[in-house]
């Protein structure tokens, strides 16, 4: 049998519960005029009565959605084709009783109308209507305040649908407003949220406690908390969390957006704010309600002395929050990423009672977020969430979702490139994620000072210096790779490492190699980034740098040429210079008394894990979370005597590593590395060269090889095929070592500590 086309209902049939079909289809289905018919549609079903079309045409179906599933009431049906099997005649029973929820337009009507009148009206309205369990009856055609009726259940229990007659008992279970009902419907399909369980639980508790145990709180003589301030960097999911919690609890949500509240005329903003509180108060009468002030810092900046219009707005908010009495059972949630710019009067108990800090996600949290994000993506089994979580240091939820999107885009691009027919199933593999990692950088580092895009250097590319390499690995790579072993022996990872030695001996390159091998975020600052013509600006920049570095820990912060960057207090020529002030900032940041409140990460987890550190039986991931929450400072200098002694004590720069000028063997290794990509003549004896280059640094040796190659090109007119030994010797005679024996002696004589 052919399918029928669903069309929108005729206006004259509005509210009649008729379903117009062709008479042929009606007789096939065994329907008579006015007999009930259940139409199943995608997303729900609709109960209506069968009527022949006035023009008796077949192949069309028009129905009035008087009684249908909740999802159909608010989403109008699109044109679609229905199979006749989707139409099922239902038996016509007369119902004995029915339990309903009434949905009315305004809270005002709900408040002032006696239940008896509502009951009488609803009963009159429902007479002669076929109803189905869990369906919604649309009463909008009556044009009264009563808009919908939600059918809870019908009796006799054996029936799911039937006709309401004048003898049917109607019991009203509850009365809601349309707004509340709609918000409840919308919240049924919320997205899951990863890694924010603790904050989620806290907010839920605050919402549900006064609701479920109203007596307990009053018997204790306390009022329940009414304000929560969510603080955290952008993208950690503050707004999403609020929406999620509200959905879970079934509360209604009133959102205040900054631009909507602020009006152009004086007094208008305050009025809108009052209206907003009034709305929340009305919504709170029906059930839990949350007033959400997103981006609170824009709404309520710190009050200034001048008569700025914001001052009045802040004052209005303060008085409104104070004016909430016990009967107003709604919770105010504010969210901001700049808590310092809020007015201090807002942040006291009684207004925002609790401040919840949502930090950048920790390793475990990132793993949870990733698994939520990837749950709906067809991922390859090779994708290892743990490894991805390890690689995504400093990524917040928004970054991770961007990462997943980017990976999916790579997969699609590859798919369309490889097989043009595009039939194969798209699977997102680990390689797509790796590609995506290159293009998506963590957002907390987007505007950071020292973000450097370094070309990877492997340890093998550095000749010699095996002892230094080992020390560096010990202090940088090991704590990251084997945290459980460190915890086992009660070791802490070092706070900082100082590399010193004569210039050109690969100090910078060593750090680069360490950063490459450890996969952590690498920030590098120079004087140009920090110094500014304003007083206090440089210190602020350095503190900011540390804050960002901590947000995406584990992180390596590289301070090259630290002697010129940070001064020494002992050298009393300029007691109050920028350098000394920077030094004090650095000392504080490295070994200060603690972290700022807003920098907390993964609220309860850290404490929990630290407590468990004692019994050595924790997971490796937990261990990594806890051990690697610090920033590692790596500094390099060739004038260690200029450094302040406070900087060099253990606990700050713990490991002080001397990078010596290369000895003969190291020089050979360096020469080998340098000449790896050069066509060297067979007569070249690198050992002899190494022996002849006493006091040459690594940079000198590299320069030597370069000179030799240039000489070869110069002598043989661009046609040089190999670099002969003579060229090396010639260039050796031209160049001289950059390190002097005197320098080395000073390094040996005056160890920095």
């Amino acid at each position, binding site marked *: 049998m052919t399918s029928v086309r669903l069309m929108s209902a005729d206006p*004259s049939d509005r*509210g*009649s519960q008729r379903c117009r079909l062709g*008479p042929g289809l*009606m*007789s096939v289905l065994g329907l*008579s*005029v*006015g007999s009930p018919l259940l139409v199943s549609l995608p997303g729900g079903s609709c109960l209506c009565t069968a*009527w*022949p079309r*006035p023009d*008796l045409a077949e192949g069309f179906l028009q129905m009035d959605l008087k009684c249908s599933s909740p999802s159909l009431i608010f989403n109008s049906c699109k044109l679609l084709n229905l199979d006749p099997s989707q139409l099922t005649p239902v038996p016509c029973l007369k119902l004995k009783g029915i339990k309903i929820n009434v949905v009315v337009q305004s809270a005002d*009507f709900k408040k*002032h*109308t006696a239940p008896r*009148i509502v009951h009488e*009206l609803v009963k*009159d*309205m429902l*007479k002669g209507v076929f109803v189905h369990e869990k369906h919604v009856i649309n009463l909008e*055609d*009556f*044009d*009264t*305040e*009563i808009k919908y009726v939600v059918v809870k259940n019908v009796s006799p229990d054996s029936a799911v649908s039937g006709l309401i007659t004048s003898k049917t008992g109607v019991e009203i279970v509850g009365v809601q407003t349309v707004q509340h009902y709609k918000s409840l419907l919308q919240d049924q399909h919320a997205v899951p949220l990863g890694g924010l369980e603790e904050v989620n639980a806290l907010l839920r508790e605050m919402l549900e406690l006064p609701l479920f145990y109203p007596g307990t709180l009053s018997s204790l003589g306390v009022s329940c908390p009414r304000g929560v301030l969510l603080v955290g960097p952008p993208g950690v999911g503050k707004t999403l969390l609020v929406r999620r919690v509200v959905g879970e609890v079934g509360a209604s949500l009133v959102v205040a957006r900054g631009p909507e509240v602020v009006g152009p005329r004086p007094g208008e903003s305050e009025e809108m704010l009052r209206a907003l509180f009034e709305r929340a108060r009305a919504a709170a009468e029906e059930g839990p309600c949350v007033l959400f002030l997103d981006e609170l810092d824009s709404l309520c900046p710190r009050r200034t002395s001048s008569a700025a219009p914001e001052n009045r707005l802040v004052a209005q908010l303060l008085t409104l929050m104070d004016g909430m009495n016990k009967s107003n059972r709604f919770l105010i949630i504010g969210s901001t990423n700049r808590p310092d710019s809020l007015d201090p009067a807002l942040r006291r108990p009684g207004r925002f009672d609790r401040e919840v800090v949502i930090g950048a996600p920790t390793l475990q949290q990132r793993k949870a977020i990733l698994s939520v994000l990837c749950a709906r993506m067809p991922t390859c089994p090779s994708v290892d969430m743990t490894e991805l979580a390890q690689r995504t240091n400093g990524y917040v939820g928004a970054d991770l979702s961007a990462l997943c999107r980017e990976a999916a885009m790579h997969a699609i691009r590859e798919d369309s490139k490889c097989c043009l027919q595009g039939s194969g199933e798209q699977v997102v593999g680990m390689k797509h994620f790796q590609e995506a990692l290159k293009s998506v950088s963590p957002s907390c580092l987007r505007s950071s000072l020292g973000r450097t895009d370094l070309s990877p250097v492997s340890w093998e590319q550095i000749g010699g210096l095996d002892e230094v390499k080992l020390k560096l690995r010990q202090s940088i790579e090991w704590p990251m790779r084997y945290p459980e072993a460190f915890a086992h022996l009660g070791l802490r990872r070092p706070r900082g490492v100082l590399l010193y030695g004569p210039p050109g001996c690969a100090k910078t390159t060593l750090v680069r190699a360490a950063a490459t091998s450890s996969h952590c975020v690498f920030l590098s600052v120079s004087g140009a980034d920090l110094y500014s013509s304003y007083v206090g600006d440089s210190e602020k920049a350095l503190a900011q740098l540390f804050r960002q570095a901590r947000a995406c820990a584990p992180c390596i912060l590289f301070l090259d040429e630290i002697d010129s960057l940070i001064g020494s207090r002992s050298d009393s020529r300029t007691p109050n210079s920028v350098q000394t002030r920077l030094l004090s900032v650095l000392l504080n940041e490295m070994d200060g008394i603690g972290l700022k409140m807003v920098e907390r990460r993964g609220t309860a987890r850290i404490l929990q894990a630290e407590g468990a550190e004692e019994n050595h039986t924790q997971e490796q991931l937990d261990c990594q979370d806890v051990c690697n929450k610090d920033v590692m400072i790596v500094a390099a200098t060739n004038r260690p005597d200029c450094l302040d002694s406070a900087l060099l004590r253990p606990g700050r720069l713990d490991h002080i590593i001397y990078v010596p000028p290369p000895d003969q063997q190291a020089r050979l290794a360096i020469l080998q590395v340098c000449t790896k990509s050069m066509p060297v003549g067979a007569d070249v004896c690198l050992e002899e060269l190494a022996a002849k280059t006493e006091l040459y640094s690594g940079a000198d040796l590299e320069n030597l090889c370069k000179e030799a190659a240039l000489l070869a090109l110069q002598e043989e007119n661009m046609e040089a095929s190999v670099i002969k030994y003579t060229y090396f010797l010639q260039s050796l005679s031209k160049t001289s070592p950059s390190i002097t024996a005197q320098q080395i002696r000073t390094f040996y004589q005056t160890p920095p500590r």
Partner: protein
Amino acid sequence: MSKPALTSLHQALRKSFQCVENNQKLWKSVLAECTPLLSSLGNLAEQSRALSNVQISNTPLRLFPDLEGRLRFKLLQATDTVLGKLNDKMTSLQSVRDAISNQVCAVFQLYEQNTDSLGLPVVTERSATAPSVTDMLEWLQDAERHYRHQFLRRKTLLQTLRADNLSLLESAPERWKSLESPTADDNITDTLCKVSFFMESE
């Protein structure tokens, strides 16, 4: 075969349309009686408003003891009387509605009892003089729904009036008037015209 059933159904339909026609007139006359009552209700509301706005102690009338309370009592009493009268009218409107509802219900019952003998081709058959049975049933149902809607809206309006909300009382006459839907009334008149041949073909 279906002849006797069809004849009896036709008979019932004729009776129903007759009933609708009679009740339509009745309905209109009752509504016409309501209009002055509503306007006096609005007037009373206005008077109450005026009473609340005036400060009697500032006028020469202050010599009369407890004037405001007495006036208010008077006004409330008058409002009560008007509402009582309106309630009576509502009762007669309700009886009109019930009469039509019962009649339409009876026709449907008759049809449902005879669905076996009255196949779809029979009930959808139209002729030059008589509309098909389904059309007539539909019109009857539409008319019944119209009266139910009208009655409920008016009832809701009256039921939600409150003495403490003067603006509701004041706006009552306009809202009462806006509830009238001439098109739906015309539709019923049209229907009655459409079935006039059928009614006369007895």
